[in-house]
């Protein structure tokens, strides 16, 4: 360690369910260089200071979506958030808000996985298609309609940002709605009517009060709030017009 080595304090929310009654904070002093991310900071803690610290990560380049944490209270990908931006103040890292903590910075994402399955995140063909019919063709406009909503990496920052999900965890939430929308507006897909049942339901889009913080924290510019809002209009149209045109998942 050179003499002018900078050292930053990292405050970590710790929780080991087998011995801790509740989460508590622990402060570590971490030597760092200007190119180090918050993720690298907690990796330093694990490698040199306390091997029992648990957190998720994989790609280190904002692709895999596994390293989401609350950093100074803001939902962030720790691999693209830099320690230098907090120095000389202390930086606080905690597990993502609104989710049960499994261990330290690791959240339990089972509820989200169920939501992901419930939206049927795959193309449901309009009619059976044989190999001989070849590939689907799409125009640039048809691609445009859904492309943005397909870049979600399931990092769950938007759920940690959403006060309504915090109040009611059965709300389908921003990312799942964005992905649902991504399939509904795909010209190859014919599953919209089934998926609209979920949008229209009590778990659906009307839990949203248009806060918009989900889109602000999204590292992939998916703009989930936009998908939610478009589907409020869709759901309202379906609600009032279902008797005129009996389709669109009306029950």
């Amino acid at each position, binding site marked *: 360690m050179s003499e002018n080595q900078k050292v930053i304090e990292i405050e970590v929310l710790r929780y080991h369910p087998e011995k801790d009654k509740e989460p508590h904070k622990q402060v570590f002093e971490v030597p760092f260089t200007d190119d180090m991310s918050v993720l690298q900071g907690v990796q330093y803690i694990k490698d040199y200071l306390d091997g029992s610290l648990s957190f998720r990560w994989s790609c280190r380049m904002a692709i895999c979506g596994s390293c989401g944490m609350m950093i100074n209270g803001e939902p962030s990908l720790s691999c693209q958030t830099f320690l230098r931006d907090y120095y000389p103040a202390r930086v606080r890292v905690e597990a993502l808000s609104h989710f049960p903590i499994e261990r330290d910075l690791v959240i339990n994402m089972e509820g989200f996985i169920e939501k992901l399955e*419930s939206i049927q995140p795959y193309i449901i063909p309009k009619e059976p298609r044989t190999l001989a019919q070849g590939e689907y063709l799409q125009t640039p406009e048809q691609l445009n309609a859904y492309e943005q909503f397909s870049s979600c990496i399931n990092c769950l920052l938007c759920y940690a940002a959403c006060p309504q999900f915090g109040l009611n965890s059965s709300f389908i939430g921003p990312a799942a709605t964005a992905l649902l929308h991504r399939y509904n507006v795909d010209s190859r897909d014919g599953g919209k009517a089934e998926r609209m049942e979920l949008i229209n339901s009590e778990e659906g889009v*009307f839990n949203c009060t248009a806060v918009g913080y989900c889109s602000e924290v999204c590292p992939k510019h998916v703009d989930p709030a936009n998908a939610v809002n478009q589907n409020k209009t869709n759901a309202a149209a379906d609600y009032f017009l279902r008797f005129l045109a009996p389709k669109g998942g009306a029950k």
Partner: protein
Amino acid sequence: MKPTTLKRSNAPIFWALFGAGGMLSALLGPMLVFITGIAVPLGVVLPPDTMSYPHMLAFAKNFIGKGFIFAIIALFLWHAAHRIFHSLHDIGIHAGTGAKLLCYGTAMVGTLIAAYALLAIGF
């Protein structure tokens, strides 16, 4: 897995009233504040008797005037009720059925009073 117990939400009714009220208040609210709160009381821009009793009574007796007054009162109320209800938790109140009844109930009562009054004035 697909939840089999999905219940259709009735929120679109309240959301549509909220949306209509929001649109109307954004379009007309500032103008109404200007007319009723600034121009008429200070006697600027508009003639001083713009909102005199006979004028207003004639307006309220007119079919279109009635519709205008009713829409402004009712939709503004439904918009406010929805906004206030959903903002409660931001100030630390975890709103339940009681708060819901109070917010939307106020809007409902206001709507009924406005309708009654407008009809009672006659045509």
